[in-house]
């Protein structure tokens, strides 16, 4: 087990190096980040020269990569292209906000999906089962950003007909959110719609998995044995079937982390939430490669860690899995 983890860690580090080098080269080959500044009339050429020197823009790409890497490790990812803003404090801020959104949405999604999945499996082909299936087919076919927009449209329509704004549709907080409890109440009020959007997307995936794995388990031999030896139904489903049916979901949840951030990019943009997704989109739009690179490296690192966690968790939960 330990050797397995160590080997995976070493391998992950190599993957991250290669991936970051490839992305860095791709971004660097594709264009001169200063192109827009160069054609701006009356832009101080000395500033451009200073940026070129600061960011070593005239060196070959592998050299620039090493400079960038040094900055990333020793200088907290350095500064933005113009050199006026350190990257890491911004990233921390947006990461905290995104985590609030993603964590709550994911937790609720898992709870709802487990309940739906288990009941669908226990009452297979019932009305409930068919409705849940229809729901998740719709959820899978629905573009996330469109769902977000539809909720906003709904809020706007309600506002136009009744004059009350039941939910805010932009930003994380009011202009003056107050402190303490009132701050968090305001934050929750702002986050409800985005959380619903992320939840629906995740529930449609998770509930299908939960249903499938629950069905597999309740049709297995040991569950029949449990019934045959006279255990009450409640005990059979909860103690014997349910706990084992959860194992595949644990892996799926850990692995879907990357996809969740993708959903967050879209959701945060629609609701203009100051989170990682919006930060990333804005960095791309301002044509600044440095925050983009920092963002990608951090997120890729998290994905690698979550993949490892998924594998380890699987081994701990299911003793039949052996690592060699």
């Amino acid at each position, binding site marked *: 087990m330990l050797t397995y983890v160590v080997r995976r860690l070493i391998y992950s580090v190599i*993957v*991250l190096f*290669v*991936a970051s080098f*490839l*992305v860095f080269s*791709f*971004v660097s080959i*594709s*264009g001169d980040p200063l192109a827009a500044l160069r054609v701006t009339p009356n832009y101080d050429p000395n500033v451009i020269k200073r940026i070129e020197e600061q960011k070593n823009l005239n060196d070959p790409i592998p050299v620039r990569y090493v400079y960038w890497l040094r900055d990333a490790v020793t200088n907290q990812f350095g500064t933005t292209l113009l050199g006026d803003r350190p990257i890491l404090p911004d990233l921390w801020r947006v990461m905290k906000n995104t985590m609030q959104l993603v964590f709550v949405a994911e937790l609720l999604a898992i709870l709802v999906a487990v309940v739906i999945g288990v009941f669908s499996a226990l009452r297979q082909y019932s009305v409930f089962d068919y409705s849940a*299936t229809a729901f998740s*087919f*719709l959820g*899978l*076919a*629905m*573009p*996330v*950003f*469109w769902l977000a*927009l*539809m909720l*906003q*449209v709904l809020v*706007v*329509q309600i506002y*136009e007909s009744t004059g009350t704004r039941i939910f805010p549709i932009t930003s994380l907080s009011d202009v003056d959110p107050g402190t303490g409890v009132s701050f968090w109440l305001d934050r929750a009020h702002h986050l409800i719609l985005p959380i619903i959007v992320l939840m629906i997307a995740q529930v449609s995936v998770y509930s299908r998995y939960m*249903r*499938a794995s629950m*069905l*597999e388990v309740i049709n297995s031999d040991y569950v029949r044995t449990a019934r045959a030896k006279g255990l009450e139904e409640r005990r059979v489903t909860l103690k014997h079937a349910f706990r084992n049916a959860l194992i595949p979901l644990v892996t799926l949840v850990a692995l879907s982390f*990357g*996809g969740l*951030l*993708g959903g967050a*990019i*879209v959701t945060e*943009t629609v609701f203009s939430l100051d989170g990682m997704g919006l930060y*990333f*989109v804005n960095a*791309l739009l301002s*044509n600044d490669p440095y925050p*983009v690179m920092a*963002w*990608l490296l951090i*997120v*890729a690192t998290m*994905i*690698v860690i979550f*993949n490892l966690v998924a594998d380890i968790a699987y081994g701990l939960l299911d003793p039949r899995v052996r690592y060699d």
Partner: protein
Amino acid sequence: MTDPMYDRNVMQHSSGSAPQPAMAGGMPIGDTSQAELAYEAGVELKARSQWAYVRMRFFRHKLAVASVIVLLLIALVGLFAPQLAPYGYDEINLEAIAMSPTLDGWHIFGTDQLGRDYLTRVMFGIRTSLWVAVMVALLATLIGTAIGAVAGYFGGQIDNLLMRFTDLILTLPGLAVLLTASVYFGAGSPFKTGLILAFLLWTAVARIVRGLFLSLREKEFVEAAKASGAGDMRIIMRHILPNCVGPIVVFMTLVVAVAILLEAALSFLGFGIQPPNAALGSLIDDGQEQGLETWWLVTFPGLVIMLIALCINFIGDGLRDALDPTQRRIRA
């Protein structure tokens, strides 16, 4: 591929659903004896290829068949958008500004702030979006199959290298990489957007094909082909690949659905297909910028995207059941 086998069901000369008179002494006679009886009576038996069976199983899947029809209709609307559309794509009509859906002048999807007919725009959007999705699916399947086949067939170091490369792509956050690629590769045209999507979506196909090749290359028929002197290329193309067609087709439909949704997200965020090309995603973006009070501008393009994705998912399900009857999924 087309090893003919005789169907047990008798094909009567009279077409259509013939009555089943095979009740002897009140006992129903099984298929086999019925076929034997028919054979003795000199009734023709119809040879059915494997594909005929696939077709039969697919047509039994009602939802999938309905989806094929709906999707075909949508595709035809997209294909003939220039002929069918009631208005011009960029036709501005200042007398019909921001009209909600109405039968008046056939603005059933409404018009925007410039009086452009949204039904027309959606039709042209379907045209672009479906074209991109099909291109992505074909290209991604081609790349994935090639990489998966080489990795699975040759194994060893080549396999290791190619699969590590696939892992690498899976490590990166998909949508973020797509966005980065479109900024630095310069998307905007449907073709370029399609290229970018294809270069990210081949990994699933590659993994599946590799798995199939790994197991198939150990089979006796491959050994036989080798013994009779067939080269690697011939074995891959003529002997193993035809056995992988089923799963490849199923995964291709999945890629189409993913491509439709991803392209929509890209175009919506303003990184994908850009004006003057219309795509469903950019139409929603366009509509959103005109304010949410004109709700029809965001609603209808999105509904069309959803309908397309839904149809493709159902077709994929039907294909999976039809192509791989041994591995039935848990019924939906």
